[in-house]
């Protein structure tokens, strides 16, 4: 009945107009015919105007529910005043996109206002945790870390090696779908300067399931709406590196990643206390999302907060493997041959079956072109690469700490 009323209300005016035109024409009453024509014309203009308003309103409504809005579920920036000029708009956009690390570079920080500097510092503090400089033991077999205490003898016995690490900021959470959406919408896949020249040929394959540029399991250039705060997966190592460049960060080295999780304490020369898991020496199901936790898929990045590291970094263990800048299988094990050159991944994922393969020490490898559903990433930025005004860490006069391998300093 309501529908009938709607139809009558919509078509009454043009119908009456038409009837008047026909009557006026047939009865030779031009005034009546003209009246009908005017009614029909008014109705037509009204409909056109209304249609236009609806289209505008719809677009506005769509833009308000865009998944890119509030892209970072973790870094909530304070409300801001309306930007005044182009440079301010640009800075504001960068803050909105989570590219605060770029703004805090010594070369750029002088060009932003005090308000913007404070916002960028707040975003850094909320989004990243400081991992202090120091030593970390890598390459150890599981049994070496059963009680967490290590000495030089054990390090040699269990094929370990000591690496000096500079202070570094590491993302508190893995990069989420919403954060990666900013990169996609910001034209990250079209900006060739972000990508290694060698990989340009393969970039045509970096598309989602519907052929749009983006992570492999997205559709039409967007992530699944309920997964905004899940870690982004289905991205190759090269896509992770491009994202890192876009937001002014870099991939963490294996040593930085491991140090942030096992939080080593140097007890004295040649003596360390180092954790197997970020929370201690034994695996506990409620602290990380691996196979035995029973989820069977990724979970939002702020879940499993009980598995947080000492420094406040979440989900280092479980949920998704994380790309690092290092290569897998170099040097340590000469008997190993890889079918393809591999990049190092760490931390285990929701489908990792054995707990001993989800420790801070465990390293696995994957082809840098792989775009798997259980591999994501988090980013780092060297503390000395940011202005000391933001970090509170003074630049060393002589920088004499040498990383373990040349590979680990490459992006």
């Amino acid at each position, binding site marked *: 009945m309501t529908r009938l009323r709607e139809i009558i209300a919509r078509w009454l005016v043009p119908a009456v107009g038409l009837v008047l035109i026909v009557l006026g024409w047939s009865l030779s009453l031009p005034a009546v015919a003209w009246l009908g024509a005017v009614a029909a014309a008014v109705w037509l203009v009204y409909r056109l105007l209304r249609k236009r308003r609806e289209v505008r309103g719809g677009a506005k409504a769509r833009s308000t529910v865009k998944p890119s809005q509030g892209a970072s579920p973790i870094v909530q920036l304070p409300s801001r005043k309306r930007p005044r000029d182009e440079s301010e708009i640009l800075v504001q956009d960068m803050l909105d996109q989570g590219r605060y690390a770029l703004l805090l570079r010594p070369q750029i920080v002088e060009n932003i206002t005090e308000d913007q500097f404070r916002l960028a510092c707040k975003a850094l503090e909320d989004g990243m945790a400081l991992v202090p400089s120091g030593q970390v033991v890598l390459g150890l077999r599981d049994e070496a870390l059963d009680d967490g205490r290590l000495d030089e003898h054990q390090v040699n016995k269990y094929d370990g090696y000591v690496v000096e690490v500079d202070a570094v900021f590491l993302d508190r959470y893995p990069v989420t779908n919403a954060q990666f959406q900013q990169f996609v919408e910001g034209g990250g896949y079209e900006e060739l300067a972000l990508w290694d020249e060698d990989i340009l040929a393969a970039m045509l394959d970096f598309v989602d399931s519907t052929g749009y540029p983006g992570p492999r399991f997205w559709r039409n250039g967007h992530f699944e709406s309920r997964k905004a705060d899940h870690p982004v997966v289905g991205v190759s190592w090269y896509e992770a590196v491009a994202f890192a460049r876009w937001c002014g960060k870099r991939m963490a080295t294996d040593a930085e990643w491991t140090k942030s999780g096992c939080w080593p304490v140097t007890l004295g020369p040649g003596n360390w206390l180092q954790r197997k898991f970020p929370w201690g020496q034994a695996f506990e199901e409620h602290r990380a999302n691996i*196979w*035995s936790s*029973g989820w069977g898929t990724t979970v939002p990045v702020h879940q499993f907060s009980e598995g947080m590291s000492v420094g406040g970094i979440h989900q280092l263990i479980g949920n998704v493997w994380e790309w690092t800048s290092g290569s*897998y*299988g170099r040097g340590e094990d000469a*008997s*190993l*041959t*890889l*079918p393809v050159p*591999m990049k190092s991944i760490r931390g*285990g*994922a929701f*489908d*990792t*079956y*054995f707990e*001993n*393969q989800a420790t801070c020490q465990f390293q*696995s*490898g*994957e*082809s840098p072109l792989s775009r*798997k559903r*259980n591999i994501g990433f988090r980013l780092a930025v060297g503390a000395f690469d940011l202005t000391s005004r933001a970090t509170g860490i003074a630049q060393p006069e002589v920088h004499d700490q040498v990383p373990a391998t040349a590979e680990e300093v490459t992006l």
Partner: protein
Amino acid sequence: MNRGCDLPMDSYRLAHYSVQVPCYVCDGGNTFDAEHCRHCFAPMALAHQSNTQKVRPQILAVLGTSGAGKTVYLGMLMDMLSRQTKPLQVLARGAFSISLQQRTAAALSQGDFPAKTPNEPDRWNWVHCQVRSKYHRRPVEVIVPDMAGEAVLEEIEHPRSYPVIRAVLSKCAGVAILIDAMRLQAGQHDQDHFTMKILSFLSELERDAKRSWTDRPVALILTKSDQCDRCFDDPEAFAKTHAAGMWQQCHERFPQYKIFATGVAGACAFRHVLGENRRRIPLRIEPHGIVEPFDWLIGNLRPPRG
């Protein structure tokens, strides 16, 4: 003043020897204390368990070429099901039933695949377990042998060289055939041909119309699928493309079949071991699609006859 002493009642023992215990797999007679059947080398523990617990377990055969991943699949399956209650719950019957999962899990957790199953039937691992599922009101008793791929091929090429294989296949209530998806993708047709041989062998093994393969499930499992994404996305299409012969034969002769994709290792590398060829090793273990084929097989099992 009398000093007691224990004398074995040899007459009682002899009486036991005179009664033959039939092997559960081949029905051949054996002495009561035999460890393996003297005819087919199947463990006699299966027969003893069946007699004492008054159950008639159904046999599920797992077939495939050498290196297709039968041991890893079965070992992982049993380990996973013993650690969870849904969708299936598995309770091992007898300590020997746990050996396979123990051996597999120990190797995989240390970054290695379990050693190749020897060809000698008396060294195979057998699993006897009770399976609780949503499909059957009462628990289903199942026996699954881990047979060597080379022995299966030998029996198919030269019938009666391995009586246990023929006996298992004659009695089995369902079959899982494992096919190496990596080799298929690489264009090697041996997997296709071997599977066609097995299917042909199975369809001709049972001439009795009542026990034909019309109501027995056949699961075709594409293993190592984690190394080829397209296989996981659509196993049926992958099989049609890369193993057309197998798919055709299965489609024509076996009304109850389904194609699955599984993977255990997220990535693999090769290790050179002194005195050996290079050996494939897993870089991490992340099982996918392991339970689904077994779940489907259990769901399609018919109640045991007699």
